[in-house]
């Protein structure tokens, strides 16, 4: 590993942690980075689990015999819109909470400026940390709902064929 990539990794880890460093969580994480990331991920997965519960009700509606194609399409579209909206909301709330951590703050400057670091490495690590944090948030949020909802919204015929295959 080159020196530049090692520095990038060290900074990336610090910045990623600080993006997740929401006061609500960091108080109980007591300085443990992996614990804090775990808590943050668990919080999102729990939200995803709650969201997946809605899929059960949908299965009953779309599984009824004699459901018209229009009604099925309406349920599917509204559910998809709901999923996309909720994901956007979660990303928005996360961006709001971590807004201060997205840029170098006074602490970063005082800690990192006396060290021999290139500006490009600092910026790349910050951007990578912000992109990763948003990506991980979307992934964790949709980890369960992303599987359960497509199954629930599949047309009855497809569900029937998958049951037969299984």
């Amino acid at each position, binding site marked *: 590993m080159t020196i530049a990539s090692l520095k990038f990794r060290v900074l990336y880890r*610090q910045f990623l942690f600080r993006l997740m460093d929401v006061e609500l969580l960091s108080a109980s994480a007591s300085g443990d980075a992996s614990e804090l990331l775990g808590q943050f991920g668990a919080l999102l997965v729990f939200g995803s689990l709650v969201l997946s519960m809605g899929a059960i009700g949908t299965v009953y509606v779309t599984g009824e015999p004699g459901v018209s194609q229009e009604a099925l399409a309406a349920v599917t579209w509204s559910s998809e819109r709901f999923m996309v909206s909720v994901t956007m909301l979660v990303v928005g709330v996360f961006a709001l909470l971590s807004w201060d951590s997205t840029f170098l703050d006074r*602490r970063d400057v005082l800690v990192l400026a*006396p060290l*021999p*670091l290139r500006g490009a490495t600092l910026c790349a690590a910050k951007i990578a940390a912000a992109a990763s944090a948003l990506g991980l948030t979307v992934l964790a949020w949709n980890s369960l709902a992303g599987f359960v909802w497509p199954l629930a919204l599949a047309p009855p015929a497809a569900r029937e064929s998958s049951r037969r295959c299984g």
Partner: protein
Amino acid sequence: MTLELRNVSKRFTGILAVDSVSFEARAGEITGYLGPNGSGKSTTMKMITGLIETTAGDIFFDGKPIRGDLHGFKQRMGYVPEEPYLYSHLSGLEYLIMVGQLRDLPAKPAARRIDRLLSLLSLHGDRHAPLSAYSKGMRQKVLLSAALLHNPDLILLDEPFSGLDVGTGLVLRSLIQELAARGKVVLFSSHELETVERVSSHVVILHRGKVVADDSIERLRTLMHLPTLAEIFAQLAVEQDTAAISGEIADLILYRW
């Protein structure tokens, strides 16, 4: 090896914080940088470390302008800032490992050095505790360890005794002398004039952003016919009548209404 400032100035939106400051700090010598609050000491330190840009003038280290190779200069510099800012979610050990990695130090020897530094500064027992739980003095010790970890040629100490207990303060005082004796350039600012007088061979006194004295303490004593650095400092940089002000404050709080 010399740190040299030539006519360095810093202006903050109309306020001239540092006004054409020039001095030299040489290897093997401890240069005390003194001045009242707001005289521009920390601003000068921040300009030397590259934390803030100079408005005018140049800073040279080892004969070369630091702006020419700031990255290379920072590899040779250790800095203890006035404000003990740290990543408080890390433990003392994690913080020093991070600094070692960012300074390209080899992992195993750096780990051994960190372990030894933490032991010598009585932090070994708390090395896994988060920095948020450290006292100010403990944070200062971490900053000192971080500044010395890479064996720098230039050591900048901005109020290094702040928050330290008596024992550690005495260790630091000896350490500064030891480092200078081993050929390091040491520049330190402090309000503890007695310590500066004991430790420094050369002092620079700043007042309202300007250098008002730049000489050895011995020569200043002789020139000004004053016995102590405190009296020299009071004559050059203290404008207030300290006895009158303290008397007025006492009168004010003791007044019965």
